[in-house]
């Protein structure tokens, strides 16, 4: 490997409340890891190495949502020492599955689930990183797509905008010649309102998209909900369908007049 002429950009990968699956996606880039190590200094990535180099960092990938008072402080510190901060995955971009607490009483959960509720220190909500600090780019998914993660890193290194389309999953179904599961089978599917990026995996196997990438930028949920009802979902099922991975993100999209930027 060539001796670098200049200091390599420093990469940090940090996590808040999450399952680690998104940062694991980076480790799963087996064919590209050596090339990546030649382009960046992996300065902070606990899942890969216990060696931690101090900030500031040029590129920070943040996984997970803010669920504790400590997280809320920590994400501010992380932001302060990051030039370019990218959130990865549904937890970091929308609060994740753990944001289901936002619709319930956390104290009740604490009392019911834990033998010693007083050991549990948590906020009443799980919130995306962008609710706390400025975020330079949000990469969606539960988990994120490996190719998209590499694209975000590659684009950063090249100083260009990442090519991450924010249209619907339908685009990808049509591109891979998947027969529409809603039109041809009457299967409830969130594809028309969901952000592309997964490659339309679920419909390719005959099931409806369950929206793990969250709402696309111009999702028209009020138009889709009657279809979900027609195809057999009652009101509660629709609510569960929309909230599972991205918590309130679909609810918010439902009431947006103009596309969110």
């Amino acid at each position, binding site marked *: 490997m060539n001796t670098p002429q200049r200091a390599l950009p420093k990469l940090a990968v940090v996590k808040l409340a999450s399952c680690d699956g998104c940062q694991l996606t980076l480790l799963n880039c087996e064919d590209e890891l050596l090339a990546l190590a030649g382009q960046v200094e992996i300065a902070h990535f606990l899942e890969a190495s216990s060696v931690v180099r101090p900030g500031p960092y040029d590129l920070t990938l943040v996984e997970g949502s803010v669920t504790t008072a400590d997280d809320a402080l920590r994400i501010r510190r992380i932001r302060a020492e990051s030039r370019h901060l990218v959130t990865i995955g549904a937890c970091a971009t929308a609060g994740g599955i753990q944001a289901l607490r936002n619709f319930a009483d956390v104290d009740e959960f604490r009392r019911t689930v834990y033998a010693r509720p007083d050991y549990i220190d948590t906020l009443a909500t799980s919130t995306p990183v962008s609710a706390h600090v400025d975020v330079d780019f949000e990469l969606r998914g539960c988990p994120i797509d490996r190719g998209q993660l590499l694209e975000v890193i590659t684009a950063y290194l090249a100083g*260009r905008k990442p090519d991450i389309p924010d*249209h619907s999953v339908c685009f990808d179904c049509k591109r891979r010649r998947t027969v*529409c599961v809603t*039109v041809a089978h009457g299967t409830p599917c969130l594809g028309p309102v969901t952000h592309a990026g997964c490659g339309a995996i679920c419909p390719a196997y005959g099931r409806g998209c369950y929206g793990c990438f969250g709402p696309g930028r111009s999702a028209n949920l009020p138009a889709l909900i009657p279809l979900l009802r027609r195809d057999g979902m009652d009101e509660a099922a629709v609510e569960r369908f929309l909230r599972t991975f991205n918590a309130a993100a679909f609810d918010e999209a439902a009431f947006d007049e103009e596309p969110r930027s």
Partner: protein
Amino acid sequence: MAVTKHGEGTSRGKATARTEATARTEATAVIDRAGLDALIKTLTADGRTVIGPTVRDGAVTLAELDSADALPWGWGTELDAGHYRLVRRTDGAGFAHSSGPQSWKTFLHPQREKLWSAERGPDGALTVRDERGEQPSYAFLGVRPCDLRAIAIQDRVLAGGRFADDGYQERRRGALLIAAECTEPGATCFCVSMQGGPAADAGFDLALTEVISDLGHRFFVRVGSEEGARLLAAVPHEVADMDTEARARGGVSLARDRMGRAMPPVDLRTLLGASPESERWDDLASRCLTCGNCTMVCPTCFCTTTEEVTDLTGDHAERWQRWDSCFDLDFSYVHGGAVRTSARSRHRQWLTHKLSTWHDQFGSSGCVGCGRCVTWCPVGIDLTQEVAALAAEREGADDE
């Protein structure tokens, strides 16, 4: 209707436009199911990739065929706005289905194509390589007359101007088209009201019409080009008998009157051009998912974007062309933001281009009445109804 003659006679397989003389003395024949299978085998032996209809995942899709067994024998389709179901037919017909989720642009104008790549050497010098390799030599079996017209439109768009799409042009030149005339229009079909019809009028090498009666299951064949004549000569066939020909022509003729839908008989070019401020667009926007399905299934929608791919080192770059859609917010992105942010403006753009400004740009309508956008719209938006509403609104405004 003008028929593109782009590339005519320059390579094998291009359907030659029939002259008056050949139209009068059109070569015809009859083949049976075994003859159809021989046709596929002959084409394959000639090195062609044969694409035709086959059943997959609950729909008649287009895929590579290696024998006539793969055709959708005994399957029909039940269509409506936002609705598609396969239904069993008792007559065993192989071409009695309506247009499915794909069109031939899937092959002629693929969703993603690598254009070129560039390598940066250790000395910083760039080496650029053309990445459009040799294109497959296709034979399309079962092209509906609406889709023949759609191909003619894409010919004008992608190969008819000063800046031809090289890949499209090469694939198109090499493609042999075997039409299947329409005897079973679907409930979302409206080709007749788009100045088309269920008969293959031009642009084919061979045109088949399926005939099933007590005399057997057979295909009336019309020859549309020299290549088609050569192909027919290579497979077992018989002289067309009067009964088969009469049944074939009669079936197609009856189909004209059985279209499930009709575009209102108004001047679409003028109507759409005069309706940018129509209130109907708001109503439409409230129903439209902006999912882009209509443009993806449309056999004439041709828009692409380019995608620049670099690797982590930045020493290797590739340019790809991929399908895009005017329903994508980024489609109208210019520095600072997208121009068409509302669903209203995007749907209006699509429909106005398709039915009105397409005339200004390419000399014809962009719609052939295949009905795919109606069938495959998840919420069943029906452009014939939208046009009817625009026309009614216009009429109301004129009356005042």
